[in-house]
């Protein structure tokens, strides 16, 4: 295939998605960037004006933004860490299963298939201090005397993380299972012939081959977790130190109709996640195995 032919092929393959993303994405994305430099509240449309960098200056001094940033960061680190560890464990557990595949595969996909809003509402019922399943079971086992207030001050963030982990471990497990399936059996056979132990096979065969998939799961989970909204919105509404940046932005854009400041926060969140992703990508490239490229 000569260079011109290949160039034309690349154009044909890439053009549709690039055109789509540009046409659909340009207006909403650019409008946010433009609005972030304006003073514009939908309710006071007559008082619209250029604001320069004042929205960003306000952002720098916004204590709520800082606290929410920190809370979002903690949520992301803990929940993504748990999700990757548990997701990998689940994927390994189910990878070479011989009986009951359909049942187990279906079971682990179902949490992901439940609308987040419903899943979170369900958890709020299960975690309810008086009539919730969890406290009821713990109480009958004699493990607790007084009901635990799962969604109240202190434990609220833990409960939000648990609900999120329950919902998204399947996401990670599915991606990693697909990755495990792409590891040829010969690799294992060769490793076993060499007399490698189970841990060694995992450490030196499975894990390196799985790395690109772990990388994708890590990247997309991090991006999603950093923008977490529904789970927390339903469980606590952002109370008891669980408010995340997305919740704050949602309130400013939809509740306060403050397009200028809300857009500035959107842009800031975008920049933070973008930098975070670049760091992750760089980090993954360093550790990337030659087999995958």
């Amino acid at each position: 295939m000569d260079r011109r032919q290949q160039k034309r092929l690349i154009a044909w393959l890439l053009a549709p998605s690039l055109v789509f993303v540009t046409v659909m994405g340009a207006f909403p994305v650019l409008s946010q960037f433009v609005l972030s430099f304006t003073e514009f509240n939908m309710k006071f449309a007559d008082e619209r004006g250029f604001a320069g960098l004042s929205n960003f200056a306000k952002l720098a001094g916004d204590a709520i933004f800082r606290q929410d940033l920190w809370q979002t960061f903690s949520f992301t680190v803990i929940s993504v860490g748990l999700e990757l560890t548990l997701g990998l464990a689940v994927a390994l557990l189910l990878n070479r299963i011989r009986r009951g595949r359909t049942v187990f595969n279906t079971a682990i996909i179902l949490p992901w298939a439940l609308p987040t809003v419903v899943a979170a509402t369900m958890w709020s019922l299960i975690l309810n201090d008086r009539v919730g399943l969890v406290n009821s079971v713990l109480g009958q086992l004699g493990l607790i005397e007084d009901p635990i207030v799962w969604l109240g001050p202190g434990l609220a963030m833990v409960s939000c993380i648990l609900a999120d982990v329950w919902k998204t471990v399947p996401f990670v497990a599915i991606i990693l299972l697909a990755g495990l399936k792409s590891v040829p059996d010969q690799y294992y056979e060769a490793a076993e012939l060499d007399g490698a132990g189970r841990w060694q096979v995992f450490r030196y065969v499975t894990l390196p081959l799985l790395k690109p998939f772990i990388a994708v799961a890590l990247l997309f989970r991090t991006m999603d977790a950093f923008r977490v909204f529904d789970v927390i919105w339903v469980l606590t509404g952002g109370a008891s130190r669980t408010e995340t940046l997305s919740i704050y932005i949602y309130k400013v854009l939809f509740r306060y109709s403050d397009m200028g400041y809300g857009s500035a926060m959107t842009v800031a969140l975008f920049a933070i996640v973008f930098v975070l992703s670049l760091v992750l990508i760089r980090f993954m490239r360093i550790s990337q195995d030659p087999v995958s490229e």
Partner: protein
Amino acid sequence: MTTSQRMRSTGLWALRIGVAVLCLLPFYWLANVSLSTPSAVYKIPVDYFPKPAVIDNFRAVFETRQFPRNIWNSFVVASLTTLLTLGLGAPAAYALARLKVHRKELVMALFLGIAIFPAIGMVGPLYMAMARLGLINRYPALVLPYTLTSLPLAVWILTHYFSTLPGSLEDAALVDGCSPGSAFLRVILPVSTPGLFTSAALIFIFAWNEFLFALIMTSTPESRTVPVALALFAGLHELPWGTIAAATLVSIVPVLVLVAVFQRQIVEGLTAGTQK
């Protein structure tokens, strides 16, 4: 089998069953609530099984609303989003993974940028655009935004997936006289079913679950999708838990069927092209 192997096997099964139980726990609770009388869900102490079991909640789901229609809407929207996303994303991923794309980094960064951009900020502008185009209450009003937000994920997953396939695959096809384009269609796509199905499942379920766009872009009861229809069961203060649980279980059925039918392709599939 030696004793230690047997113990290990038993332990593994215990763990697997534990995982399955944890995954299904809220569904058991949904089933319990959906079969109970309205007040049973608030009972102190808790009832672990409905007594007496009643089907009134399920009857209410089908009697009072166009709920089956809402499930159909979700199904169509999610299917179209999946098809469109894969149709656009797979070729792009193929080019990025296996051909020498000029400024590949930039293209990947563009997709990443869209994936990262907070969707909350897009709702207003996209509503305005869809309203101008007269697409409110029509499928594209949801399919197009959903495709925009899920395309980057698909491109990234598939790029990674395609790049794990051995280079010998196309070489053989090219030797057989295939053009590079048809090598993609005839050789790469068929051996990529696990990757494609994994992406399809993720996209489908994302579109199935989305609430905010679905709320804003539709306005008639018949045009709502499942998440919004579920929100319509609640009153101003009261929450009819039984009906909501029953409706949720009903809405899970199509997904359950799809997952059960395609689970092999989603998580098992072929062991890529690597063994051929």
